[in-house]
């Protein structure tokens, strides 16, 4: 395998940054923030360069590299990206600086009193920013790993910084939420570990390299058990109903920036795992369990949407909307069509941007109002039109408004699912009504109506806060009109994955006779 240091360098940028920030002396909050931002921007720029040089018609995995790590077990530090990993990598790299900008003063009671959320007692902004960079290191690692064991290590390691972000910087019930998050993830992770070892044992190929494992996993019951180990871990992470109950607590109690990364990126590792590990490694079991997963996904779309409508806690509400969105992603992946799969991957990217923006904006609103209860607000748009406008845009992207990139992905998922499972796709489509209700009902209660006394003193967003969120919205709009660059990257990887599962798109029954019909 040809060696490329590109991905290694990319992954190490945030790690080095994190170590430097940790090493800074106490009380250097300003320097810590600036250093963190510089490193996260450097990672972003480098990720963009790698994406621009990615050959869309080239080999499936690019920028590949591999060093032996544990010789006796054939474990390698092997990195490489396909189109699926690449776009998620990009999305993560975009989100981290946005989170940093939005959380700039969130933990600093001196720098901006009205922005400080109630949480921080002894914890410093320095630790928070260092944790963000450490988290970015693990996130980039988890997407670039091409060795199953290495993936597992990153998968589990991600928990640690997030556990501290929630448990130390979160809201009033942060310890309960952090513990719940940790336990759920741990259970899933350990099941996966069992499967990872099982994979090594049963294939007998003495390697963890995914490219060498594809097609070599024995079929039958063994494959089903191994599949389930991975699947449950990913289903908890994603989360798929009924494994979802940790997310509303964690999403609500985490600081806004943490919630944005938790829901925006960490949860994507679950759906990424479906498409990168479950499908290619266990094609037979994937097909066997697909009906179950599809039904759970559709239930999740409607069930979580109804739950979101019934919430008063704004962060819980957005967390539930994410559960509904993950239903769409699951539907797209397990429909086994190019449209569904491509739509699902694009959905992951869009959802990171869209829900990331929603959480960051909620954080800015909650920092002003000191309450997560939507009924404590009202008429806020009159006082903070910029915050309201951006929030509405983020909300509209969440309900997949045509013209935004979220629509492209949602429609691809639905149309891809429809060609194989009409009834399920139709039921899922009714979810778009519920999505409109939970988004606009939230917006109405928080921003419209009679101006409440307590909101009149709110300060509108300053340029830094706008700069944190506006690029996310701009990306959503741009890729809504011109999604082709992303689709071109994602598409070949999805096709390769589907051929791993031995699935082909259904042919339109009436297409054949009309020539040139599919213009």
């Amino acid at each position, binding site marked *: 395998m040809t060696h490329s240091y590109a991905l290694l360098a990319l992954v190490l940028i945030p790690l080095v940054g994190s170590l430097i920030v940790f090493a800074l002396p106490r009380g250097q909050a300003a320097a810590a923030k600036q250093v963190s931002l510089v490193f996260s921007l450097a990672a972003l720029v480098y990720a963009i360069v790698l994406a621009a040089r990615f050959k869309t018609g080239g080999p499936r995995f690019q920028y590949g590299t591999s060093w032996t790590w544990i010789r006796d077990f054939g474990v390698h530090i092997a990195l490489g990206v396909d189109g699926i990993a690449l776009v998620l990598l990009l999305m993560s790299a975009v989100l981290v600086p946005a989170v940093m900008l939005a959380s700039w003063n969130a933990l600093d009671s001196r720098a901006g009193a009205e922005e400080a959320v109630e949480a921080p007692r002894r914890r410093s902004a320095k630790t928070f920013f260092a944790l963000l960079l450490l988290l970015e290191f693990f996130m980039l690692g988890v997407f670039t790993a091409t060795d199953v064991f290495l993936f597992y290590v990153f998968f589990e390691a991600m928990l640690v910084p997030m556990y501290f972000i929630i448990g130390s910087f979160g809201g009033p019930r942060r310890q309960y939420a952090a513990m719940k998050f940790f336990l759920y993830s741990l*259970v899933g992770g350990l099941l996966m570990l069992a499967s990872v070892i099982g994979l090594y044992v049963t294939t007998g190929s003495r390697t963890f390299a995914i490219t060498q494992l594809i097609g070599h996993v024995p079929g039958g019951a063994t494959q089903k058990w191994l599949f389930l180990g991975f699947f449950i871990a990913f289903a908890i992470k994603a989360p798929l109903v009924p494994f979802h109950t940790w997310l509303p607590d964690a999403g609500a109690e985490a600081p806004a920036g943490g919630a944005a990364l938790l829901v925006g990126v960490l949860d994507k590792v679950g759906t990424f795992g479906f498409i990168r590990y479950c499908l290619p490694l266990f094609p037979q079991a994937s097909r066997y369990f697909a009906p179950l997963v599809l039904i759970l996904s559709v239930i999740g779309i409607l069930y979580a949407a109804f739950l979101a*409508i019934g919430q008063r806690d704004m962060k819980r509400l957005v967390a539930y909307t994410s559960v509904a969105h993950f239903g769409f992603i699951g539907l797209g992946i397990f429909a086994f069509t190019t449209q569904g799969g491509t739509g699902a991957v694009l959905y992951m990217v869009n959802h990171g941007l869209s829900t990331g923006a929603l959480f960051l904006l909620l954080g800015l609103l909650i920092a002003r109002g000191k309450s997560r209860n939507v009924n404590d607000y009202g008429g806020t748009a009159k006082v903070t039109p910029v915050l309201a406008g951006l929030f509405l845009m983020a909300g509209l992207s969440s309900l997949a408004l045509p013209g935004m990139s979220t629509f492209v992905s949602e429609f691809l998922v639905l149309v891809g699912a429809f060609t194989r499972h009409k009834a399920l796709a139709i039921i899922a489509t009714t979810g778009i009504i519920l999505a409109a209700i939970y988004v606009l009902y939230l917006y109405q209660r928080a921003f419209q109506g009679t101006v409440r006394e307590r909101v009149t003193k709110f300060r509108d967003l300053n340029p830094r806060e706008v700069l944190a969120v506006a690029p996310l919205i701009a990306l959503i709009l741009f890729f809504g009109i011109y999604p082709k660059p992303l689709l071109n990257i994602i598409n070949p990887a999805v096709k390769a994955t589907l051929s791993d599962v031995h699935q082909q798109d259904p042919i339109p029954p009436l297409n054949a006779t009309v020539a040139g019909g599919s*213009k």
Partner: protein
Amino acid sequence: MITAHGIQSYAWLLVAIPAASALILLTLGRAADKWGHLLGALVPVGLFVYAVFLFFSVKGQSNRKVDLHMFSWIPVARFRVDAGLLLDPLALVFVLLITGVGSLIHIYAVGYMAHDPGRRRFFGYFNLFVAAMLLLVLADNYLAVYVGWEGVGLASYLLIGYYYTRPSAATAGNKAFFANRVGDVGLSIAIMLMFAYFGTTSFAGVFGHFGHGGNATTGVATAIALMLLLGACGKSGQFPLQTWLPDAMEGPTPVSALIHAATMVTAGVYLIARSAPVFDATSAARTVVTIVGAITLLYGCINGAGQDDLKRVLANSTVSQIGYMFLAVGLGPGVYAIGIVHLLGHGFFKAALFLSAGSVMHAMNDRIDMRRFGGLWRVMPITFFVFVCGYLAIIGFPFATGFWTKDKIIEAAFDKGGTSGYLLGIIALVGAGLTAFYMTRALVMTFLGKRRWEPDVHPHECGPVMWLPMAVLAVLSLVGGWLLIFGGGVQEWLTPSVGPSVEAGVHTVSKPVLTAITLVVVALGIAGAWVAFGTRTIPEEQPQNVTVVTRASRRNLYADAFNEAVLMRPGQWFSRALVFFDNRGVDGVVNGLSASFGGGSSRFRRLQSGFVRSYALSMLGGTVAVIAVLLAVRFQ
């Protein structure tokens, strides 16, 4: 189909310019307050001028279907959707209507919104509306139509909820969006069906499967057509998704004019006429369209008769007039064009009516209760004149617009033949009478009779920025219908898009007789309203001892109450029950399991406060055991 050339290749600017203008107005903020409204009003005027040139450019060629390909939008394997425009006769009449009537409404709004601090924001939304509507009618495939479709929905949501600090306005905006979304489900499924069966969503591709040499089965055609109809009902405020439209009056009056006359509600009619090849293939779906149209046209008439709010009367008249258009396009081959002609005529007179209603409202300190109007003709002569022109047009007074356009629909309904033809014809005829009744009532209560003004109002005529556009629309209301049908006019022009207009060889009821009957029915409606309202004093308070019909009419035939009782409240209960279930049920089971696992809930609580390691260790132990078993099984 030929490729766009010359002036035609700039047609994408029709969408891009208003979109860019909206973006500028909405993102620049207060910096654009001084000139924002001017930019906003200039945009549609400029587009109209361009549209006229575009119209003649297409008219000058023998093949009047021009394709403008822009870029590949969503290419995923077999699913390939392009961003492309189709400049054909149907699209172009809509472009002229949207930019033409739209320009007049924009200019009017400069005056109407002069004292509103949010005028720039208003014009931003207005331009967004125009951009979305133009995309809707210009797109050459269903998915791009969907983008314009939803953009129109968004703009209407923003404009209806323009006074968002009023809870009723915010709620009305949401209601509009939700009803539209129900329709969107239909449109989405229709597009999915197209892709699943034909592998394409472009007009050319889909229509290739219908008509001569097409292989689409009636079942597929019916399914697609009914789903498209659901979408159309949502957007056009047709039964059973009609209740959002009267509530849309919460927005400033120019919004009502734009939504009702030039954009938005006509989109449903457009969609059906555009999909003519699909509807041609399925008589079942066409029957459903006519039924929807017939029900809605009566519903709108009955509701319109009981309202005391002038704008709500007009809103219900829109519901009813769009019902006529649905009826027409539902009658199918040969009648699509008549529906479109009525749509254009309606654009003229409904804009005239709404803008004069806005002028009245402006003069009466934003009050809109007709019981507190009366005798306004003397102080607002221009407004009165414009309203009368719109009035004559809508009731179908001889030689005014409605006379030409609506009567043709009544005629076509009878010509359908059979019992259903008679039934639809009679409903359309009754509708004409009721329209005359409620419009006369509105005219009398607003402009004639004694003054019932509240003491603090001092009505006056509006300024020229407002009355000039009104005057143009008034003239169009009078002569527009004749211009539209003169020498076959628009019907012939539309042939390449919706097929030739066919007049039945033998009329069920001969033309002069039907015209006479219609006029008599209209006269009866006028007379009825005159006896009931013109000859008596109008009470300033709503009388309570009224008939069941009036009572039902005031409450929108209980459609809102129905929605609330059947959809909203159960939905809320269901949502609350699920929240309870999720917290106590799903989560409770998981918490309970882990608690019993750890030896009681107190233990779990201790774990929560920091005993991670012991828990993790026990878990790890379990996993190690699992792995050991797995290895043992393997190596036996």
